[in-house]
Each structure stands twice: as structure tokens, then as C-alpha cells.
């Protein structure tokens, strides 16, 4: 079985904006949109977290069902798509990539850790996440849930895990 993802999609020069009108594709009468050729960008670069994160997502997608021999669900592609959208919002270009582990219900857990703080984000379903924060210095823990508004998580990651 091939484990490759559609890598050609990833190799486009960044920034490659999200296609703005995906839902409407192929509905109206076909038209050819004329986009002029421009030189490849030489000053833009990928965010540092992007490549290792996508590589890990690719690994997770190959796991399939029962990957732990305990009956766990396969990692859901819509969970990964949501996690990617979330990271694109909360991560600065130089934020460190998370460790990513699969969960039994088809979701994933993202982890960032250093000597002073630990952050875990459980992505259960699209629009359904739980954030856990441990201040290793004071021992104070906090946990909250979020949907699609992720400013609090972004603040944490940029202050503690951005070079």
C-alpha cells in the first residue's frame, strides 16, 4: 500500500491561499479563469511547523482501524483537516511543531512541552477540542474546551513555544 499523500499539493510555493470558494466548484457553467504567470516567490518560506506536522499526519492516516489492537478507530481525515486549519490560525511561522498521537475515537492529541509549561490539545471532532495546560513551575493546571475560536491557545503557543 502506498503511504504517500498527495504531496504535489503540498509542494506549491507558500503562501498558497485556501481555495476560497470550494463548495461552489463545478456547479456553475464551466469557465476558464485566466491567471497570469508570475515568477516563483523567493522571499516567502513555509512555516517551520508545517512540514513535520504534515509528515506526521501522513503517518497517522496509514494506521487504519484497530491500529493499537484494542479496537481503536482509524484517525479521521476531517479531524486532521480541522487540526490543520486550527494550527494555521494559532501558530506563528516559527512556532515549534507539536508531537501528535492518535486517540482511540479517531481524534488526535497535539502536545507541546518545555521546562516551564505543557500544553495538550485533544481534537475530538471538527469544532470540538479540549485544551489542557500545566504550568510546571507552579503546578497549576487548567483545562477548557473550544470550538472554532482559538485565540487563547494561540496566545499560549506564541508565548511559550515560538522561537
Amino acid at each position, binding site marked *: *500500500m*502506498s*503511504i*504517500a*499523500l*498527495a504531496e504535489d*499539493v*503540498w509542494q*506549491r510555493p507558500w*503562501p*498558497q*491561499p*485556501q*481555495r*476560497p*470558494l*470550494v*463548495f*461552489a466548484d*463545478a*456547479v*456553475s*457553467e*464551466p*469557465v*476558464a*479563469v*485566466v*491567471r497570469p504567470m508570475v515568477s516563483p516567490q523567493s522571499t516567502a518560506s*513555509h*512555516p517551520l511547523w*508545517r512540514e513535520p506536522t*504534515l509528515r506526521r*499526519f501522513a503517518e497517522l*492516516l496509514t494506521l487504519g482501524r484497530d491500529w493499537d489492537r484494542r479496537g481503536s478507530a*482509524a484517525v*479521521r*481525515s*476531517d479531524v*486532521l*483537516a*480541522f487540526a*490543520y*486549519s*486550527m494550527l*494555521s*490560525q*494559532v*501558530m*506563528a511561522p516559527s512556532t515549534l511543531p507539536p508531537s501528535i498521537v492518535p486517540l482511540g475515537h479517531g481524534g488526535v492529541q497535539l502536545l507541546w512541552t518545555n521546562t516551564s509549561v505543557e500544553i495538550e490539545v485533544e481534537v475530538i*471532532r*471538527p*469544532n470540538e477540542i479540549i485544551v489542557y495546560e500545566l504550568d510546571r513551575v507552579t503546578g497549576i493546571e487548567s483545562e477548557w474546551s473550544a*470550538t*472554532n*475560536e*482559538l*485565540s487563547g491557545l*494561540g496566545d499560549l503557543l*506564541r508565548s511559550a513555544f515560538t522561537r
Partner: protein
Amino acid sequence: MGVQFNSLDRLLAPHLGIIWEEFKEQYPETEQHPPLDPVFETFAEKGSRMPVPSAHFELLATIPTPRVFFINSARTELIQVQRDRFHHNWRKVGEGDAYPRFERMLESFEIEYRKLQEVFKRERIGSIEPNQSEVTYINQILLPEGQSPFEAFERLFGSFTKALILDDVGPPEDTRFLLRYIMRDEDGAPIGRLIITAEPAWKLDGSNIVQFALAARGKPHSADLAGVKSFLQSGRRHIVRAFTELTSDEMHKIWERKQ
């Protein structure tokens, strides 16, 4: 208009035939297309605020369940079904085709959504748990013979294009734009995005057009049909306002809009 829901992994290609049986009388034609990737509008307002670079999450070794179109005899209305989406669309095919109005479209969408939900339940495929909804208007504006795309933009979008004319090289040969706005609820919390594009294009018959598209997309107000409908209604209101504010008086006259 459409809804994206949590992926139903038990929905396989044979189920699409069973679903078609439910819609066949009204939509006797079919087409098959590759599935669309999931799209999510997420927010972190102190974040980078950059557009999201695209990525595609699917194993090449697996066979994707296709997206199917069920199309009416006039080919003006269609529904789209795939593992995580349901859409109802209207499109102009002939010159005499008149847009059936948003309220009628929403009514059809609601009836078909309920029907789909029943099939999913009956066939033990799962239930629809909406995570995004979207309403889109696509306007294709024909360019008169000899008019450049930029002249069309001046005509359609009014005075702001004047600032784009440079002293030494004159007006741009052509132009395009992509605007993204954040939609908010009564408390100011972000709920979705209004995305507007305008760009030159040509139709298969060779005529030149400007394609002006407005889409409102975001998390439904609640993860059920009522929440989806509510989002579609507010999205449509934003689109109508944006259309009115962004386009010129001449454009309004083309669409016979009242000021």
C-alpha cells in the same frame, strides 16, 4: 447552499445509488465527481491572520467515495452528496432561466436535508452532524466586445479602481481581487467568513466575463438543521449587503436593485 458534516465513514459508493432512488423522480440525471476536501473556518484573532496554506488529507492508496450530482431535467438545479457534504445548487443554463429566490431554495434544501437524514438513518449509515455551512452567489458578467477586464471592473465596482491607474503605465491590463471579512454574532464572536472574489474568465463559447462570487461560510449556529438554516440566512444577509456596498450604481441597475 450547503452543509459539511462529520464524515460518515460507513457511506460507501453503493449507498449513493440508494440515496439517488430517493431523489430520482425530481433529479433524474447524475454525474460523478471527485470528493471535495473538508474546509473549516477557524479563528485566532491575535494570530497570523494569514490565509491558510492548503493541504490535502487523503491516502492515495484508498479509493475515495465519490461526490455525486443529482440533476433535474432542466439541468438548472442539482444536489451534491458525498461522505461529509450535502448541497443544493441552482445555476443558469439558458437565457430564460430565472433565479428561484433564496427562500424557495432554502425550502428545497430543508426538505432534501430531512430526506437524506432519513436515508442515512434507515441504512444505518449514521447521522448528519453539521460542522460548516455555506451560501454562495456566483455572478458571471459578460464583457461587451472590446472592453478590457479592467474597464469592466471600473464599470462594476465603481470609483475605487481609479487609484489603480499609474501615471507612467496607465491602467492595469487586468485585475482581480479576493476579500475576506469575519462574520460575527451579536456578542462580537467570530462565526464565519464572508469571502468575495472577482476575476476575469472566459466561457466555453469564447465570450469574456468577470466572475464575481460571494460566499459566506462558517460553523452553523447549532449542530442541526435549525442551526444550519440560521447560518445560511445570516450569510445571505451579509452577501446582499456586500453586493450592494461593493458594486457600482450601474451594476445595481443591471440587477435592477433598489437603492
